């Protein structure tokens, strides 16, 4: 195996002979290590008749292996104070935990067993099915979730991996059995789809050796490549209401498709989003909707530039009487931004913030691990943290204005309001 060491954040990166990527960073702040395993086994790989399958796998993969019962896994984790968090997004499943340095080898061994040899016992699957159905029911009672999921379904189509409900529906979850879980694991969990990041109070070389011992023997062919399709940007405004009349507050989700993470215009887009709905308390949107108009506790935007153009989402929670005013305020702020672009002051301050906040982002083991995993997923390079200031520094007002003009077009927005709103949304 070959190891590359860089300056800056300076992680060490190794590709094991079986294709698993291991990245390690020595960080001596506390006597602990964060282990962050990412497997390319996200919701995009759910079969259309088993939507929610990857989420179901995330809930059951640690419930028994060929040599460990669920109870034994629980004891091995809990005895060391370790909480294994397993989450799944559209592209990847993340298995993340922090352990004391003295427990690193034992926890890595346990994690390798969970990742490579889960058995999905029937009784555990049935228990987890009940939990998942309860989670889906809770989502259906949550206006913020309903608005966000509804907007994505309208933006991407309800059968597209970006538009589907991540947990599936009660009906789809009812049809998932142990066979489907094992098949998904067999197809997606391969050495070459795993990247493992270790950050903490252990030398990088020792961490990599430990990872190699835990995962080096795992052998299987690489998984099938992603075939995710891009969707065309909306050409007209779409608005929909999900009535939830006994709730107290209405939630607005308003969005567009954005761009790929690899698009050279990403940095202009990143700054645009920060100025529009992030900087300080929600950028321009927070200024207008919360600070000046007093309509909402939260108003913000979020950018998900991804392997395909992900959503740019604007969110606000408002009194039902203020839904129309809030939507009009969003329309107006977007139009103004698209027309005029940012001010020089806004651009400078947002750039300073995004660059200046990096030491804070990279202060904790988990923060570093998340950052390195993102670098790896998008192929940004081990020196990305060193290049970010120049990449943001190269963006000028015209560049931000150009992406704003292309994207922030209210007449092509997709919006969903969920809550006690009985008006005619437009």
């Amino acid at each position, binding site marked *: 195996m070959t190891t590359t060491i860089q300056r800056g954040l300076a992680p060490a990166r190794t590709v094991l002979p079986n294709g698993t990527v291991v990245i390690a960073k020595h960080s*001596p*702040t506390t006597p*602990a290590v964060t282990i962050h395993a990412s497997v390319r086994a996200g919701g995009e790989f759910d079969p259309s008749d088993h939507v929610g399958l990857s989420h179901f796998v995330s809930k059951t993969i640690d419930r028994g292996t060929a040599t460990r019962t*669920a109870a034994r*896994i*629980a004891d091995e*984790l*809990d*005895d*060391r*104070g*370790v*909480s294994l968090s397993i989450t799944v997004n559209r592209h990847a499943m993340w298995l993340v935990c*922090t*352990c*004391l340095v003295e427990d690193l080898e034992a926890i890595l061994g346990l994690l390798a067993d969970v990742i490579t040899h889960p058995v999905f016992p029937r009784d555990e699957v*049935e*228990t987890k099915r*009940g*939990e998942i*159905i*309860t*989670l889906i*029911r*809770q989502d*259906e*009672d*949550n*206006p913020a979730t309903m608005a966000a999921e509804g907007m994505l379904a309208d933006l991407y189509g309800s059968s597209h991996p970006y538009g589907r409900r991540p947990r599936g529906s009660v009906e789809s979850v009812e049809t998932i059995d142990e066979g489907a879980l094992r098949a998904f694991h067999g197809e997606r969990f391969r050495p070459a789809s795993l990247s493992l990041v270790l950050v903490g109070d252990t030398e990088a070389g020792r961490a990599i050796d430990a990872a190699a011992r835990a995962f080096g023997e795992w052998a299987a062919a690489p998984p099938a490549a992603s075939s995710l399709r891009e969707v065309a940007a909306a050409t007209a405004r779409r608005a929909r209401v999900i009535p939830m009349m*006994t*709730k*107290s*507050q209405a*939630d607005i989700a308003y969005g567009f498709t954005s761009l790929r993470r690899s698009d050279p215009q990403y940095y202009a887009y990143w700054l645009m989003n920060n100025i529009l709905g992030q*900087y*300080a*308390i929600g950028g321009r949107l927070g200024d207008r909707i919360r*600070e*000046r*108009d*007093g*309509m*909402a*506790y939260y108003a913000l935007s979020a950018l998900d530039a991804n392997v395909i153009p992900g959503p740019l989402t604007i969110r606000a*929670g*408002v*009194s039902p009487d203020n839904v129309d005013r809030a939507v009009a305020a969003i329309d107006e702020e977007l139009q103004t931004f698209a027309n005029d672009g940012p001010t020089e002051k806004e651009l400078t*301050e947002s750039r*300073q*913030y995004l*660059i*200046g*906040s990096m*030491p*804070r982002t990279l*202060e*904790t*083991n*988990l923060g570093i691990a998340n950052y390195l995993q993102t670098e790896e997923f998008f192929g940004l390079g081990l020196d990305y943290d060193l290049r970010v200031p120049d990449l943001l520094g190269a963006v000028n007002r015209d560049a931000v204005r150009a992406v704003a003009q292309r994207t922030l077009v209210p007449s092509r927005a997709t919006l969903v309001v969920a*809550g006690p709103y009985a008006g005619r949304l437009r």
Partner: protein
Amino acid sequence: MVHEDVLDNGLRVLIQEMHTAPLASVWCWYRVGSKDESTGQTGVSHWVEHMNFKGTTNIPRDRVKGIIEQFGGYWNGYTWIDQTTYTETATRDALDRMLFIEAERMTNCLYDPADCESERTVIISELQGGENDPDTLLDQELTATAFKAHPYRNPTIGWLSDLETMTRDDLYGYYRRHYVPNNATLVVVGDVDAREAMRRVTHHFGGVPAGDVTRRPHTREPEQLGERRVTVSRQGTTAYLKIGYHAPAAADDDFFPMVVLDAVLTGAKGLNLWSSFRTPPPQRSARLYRALVDTGLASSVSGGIVPTLDPFLYTVSLTATDGTPLDRLEEAALAEFDRVRTGDVTDAEVRRAARQLRARLVFENDCITNIAHQLGYFQTIGSWRTAETLRQRIEAVTLEQVVGAAAKRLAPVKRTIGRFEPVPAAE
């Protein structure tokens, strides 16, 4: 090492050098929270906290935005039952800016009448957003039922009618009464020189006059004589159950045994209100998880005991799995409480809980923001020195103490049971 000093005006200053990252974290704490509010003014502490982000004499309203973000920093605040606090974490060269902001916040906030009105609707929106969540709603009802007299019964955000009627003068008067240096603790942790930092603290705060910190007498909660119940019936999809017991205050001998008992029942959380609840506890081998979640009766269980000045609540929250009757879940949960109350706790469980808590204390001290939080938090309810002895206090807990605390604190007559019973949507 923590450097402690008290200025002539009574401001307590705690500074700890940590050179692990080029950052500094400042927290300014006030010993005022929702327990200090009068009838008709519930929510005033929290509303005042919001107003203290809206400009000062020397930080014009239009200069607030970005004042810390320019340094890559983050600032925030929170209000709870015993305290209100403000924090900034940014690059170390912003230390003077952070101290200036906190000194301004202590003395010169504007309370522009138009801003007060605008914030009224923001806070009502915050309250309504919370009401959208059945778990939040049930927690509020349970707390109000468990306390008859002590002001811990009121939600920190306040009751709606008070938020609708309080005036700008109510807010400003409250601010002036409580925001004085002799009611505050300033904490600085990070890549700073302690002596130079102290010099800058004195520069910014030394001239602030002390105030008359008149304490509103707190009612002691009368002993609960029988089980209490509250049921919330609202449209929804999911049933929730909460069981609350009166908990010991942080200074009570039973507090740390109860922390260990909670870890036995629901997994160890740690003791940092700012960070402990952001990551799930190790709980798969915990009593209530195995009895209620592994059996499919509940989809989640969580427990919470936090350090407070007066006795608050130890609450266990459960989400009923779709189709599980609440009665069945309640019966199973109470059976587990009865087991531990009658002495069915093992030494192995107590030792495991202590190991879990030790690890959590390490994990939650992974950044200067969290470390600074703990020093200030414990000072508002006692002494910052408690934060430095948490590990020893937990490791000193014995099986006998845990059994004793369970027997005394988990008596059925001292509990309050809250149920959220969902009403299906009308066809």
